[in-house]
């Protein structure tokens, strides 16, 4: 694990670097694949940048709103680069809201757009795995298997490596595929595979919240996402009226 890269007085957070790298590579991959989904790559880049901006600004604003009296003592911390002063769910909600608004105003069709975003999301998932590997977060359950690694004072499952390998598999088997004839199928396959992988691998995580009976909450959440994605996939694949859907927005010139 290498949480930071220290170059003299400069301390770089390795997980942050992996995430930035993931965004950059993901943007490039999504741009290249956009055309196959009937979108202009520049339009998709704009959508992603809007969503990323919404994520960063919205996450900070929600955090400030939730802790307003504390910021009153040091108001300049509103502009602090400290990533701890951030609300993840607020950021996600803002990103979705802004992305939805941008997409609606620019005439994006939902499913082709989600298909086009799939390479970006798959790359981002891989970069999150690498960020966990760098930071030592998302660590594994204590185990005696021969490939266990020593971490946090015990021999543990290398859960970050499992996560990274799973993300690599999904990226190459689904994330980099061309979209299917029926729009939305690629995206829903990606979500199903990611949820299934998470459901399986969470069993090896040591940093989990459990119910009183020991059930891992994250596994329940992953199961619910998997069920929803499979149900939507079934609708996309078998609803005859949707078979003929073709993307309409922003066709390349």
């Amino acid at each position, binding site marked *: 694990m*290498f*949480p*930071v890269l*220290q170059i003299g*007085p*400069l*301390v770089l*957070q390795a997980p942050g670097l992996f995430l930035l790298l993931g965004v950059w590579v993901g943007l490039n991959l999504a741009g290249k694949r956009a055309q196959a989904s009937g979108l202009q790559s520049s339009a998709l880049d704009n959508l992603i940048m809007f969503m990323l901006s919404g994520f960063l600004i919205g996450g900070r604003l929600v955090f400030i709103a939730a*802790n307003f009296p*504390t*910021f009153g*003592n*040091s108001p300049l*911390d509103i502009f*602090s680069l*400290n990533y*701890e*002063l951030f609300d993840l769910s607020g950021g996600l909600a803002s990103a979705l809201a802004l992305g939805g608004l941008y997409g609606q105003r620019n005439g994006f069709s939902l499913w082709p757009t989600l298909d086009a975003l799939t390479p970006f999301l798959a790359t981002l998932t891989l970069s999150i795995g690498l960020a966990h590997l760098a930071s030592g977060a998302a660590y594994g359950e*204590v185990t005696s298997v021969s490939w266990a690694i020593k971490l*946090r*004072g*015990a021999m543990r499952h290398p859960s970050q490596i499992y996560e990274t390998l799973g993300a690599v598999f999904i990226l190459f088997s689904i994330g980099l595929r061309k979209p299917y004839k029926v729009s939305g199928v690629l995206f829903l396959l990606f979500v199903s595979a990611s949820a*299934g992988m998470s*459901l*399986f691998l*969470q*069993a090896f995580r040591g940093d*989990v919240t*459990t119910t*009183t*009976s*020991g*059930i*891992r909450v994250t*596994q*329940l959440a*992953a*199961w619910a996402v*998997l*069920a929803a994605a*499979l*149900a939507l*996939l*079934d609708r996309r*694949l*078998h609803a005859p009226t949707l078979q003929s859907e073709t993307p309409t927005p922003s066709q390349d010139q």
Partner: protein
Amino acid sequence: MQKNQTRILSAALLLFGLLWIFASARPTTSNAAALASGPEVGLFAPEFTLELMSGGQMSLAELRGNVVVINLWASWCGPCRAEMPAIENIYNEYRERGLVVLAVNVTAQDSLIEAQAFATQYGLTFPILLDTDGAVSYQYRLSALPTTYFVGRDGIIKKINIGGPLSETQLRLEIEALLNGAP
């Protein structure tokens, strides 16, 4: 693939998922790992006794019952310089409510004279400990400066911040949460 086949496959996947969730549930017995000591969140902060810059010694063990912030720093470290005024402000604001700041100077990688000048320059009033042989840095697996450990009243590490500088708001939020938490 036929409609029914995909539905059967989906149902089988979901059923397997449910079985896996129950099969991989954690035993609900007491967690022995929680009793261990180590420089990780959820474990007891490793004990140490160090010389104070002002003379005498101080042990982490004698501070049990207080919220303790252990900050590892060096005088040549830019982010350490940037965050130290915020730590001093927070210490003065919360010391009467049970906050203790232990500023552990990584003296093995620093100069005692420079460290003393640093403490004077910033008017630091909290205890400054000297890790002259690097034993505590090793014990806490120091990978970068500054590194800050937030220890609850129960002696368990609640949060680790590697790198810096910490903002006053983040310090205030972490310490408020620890001071208001269960002992």
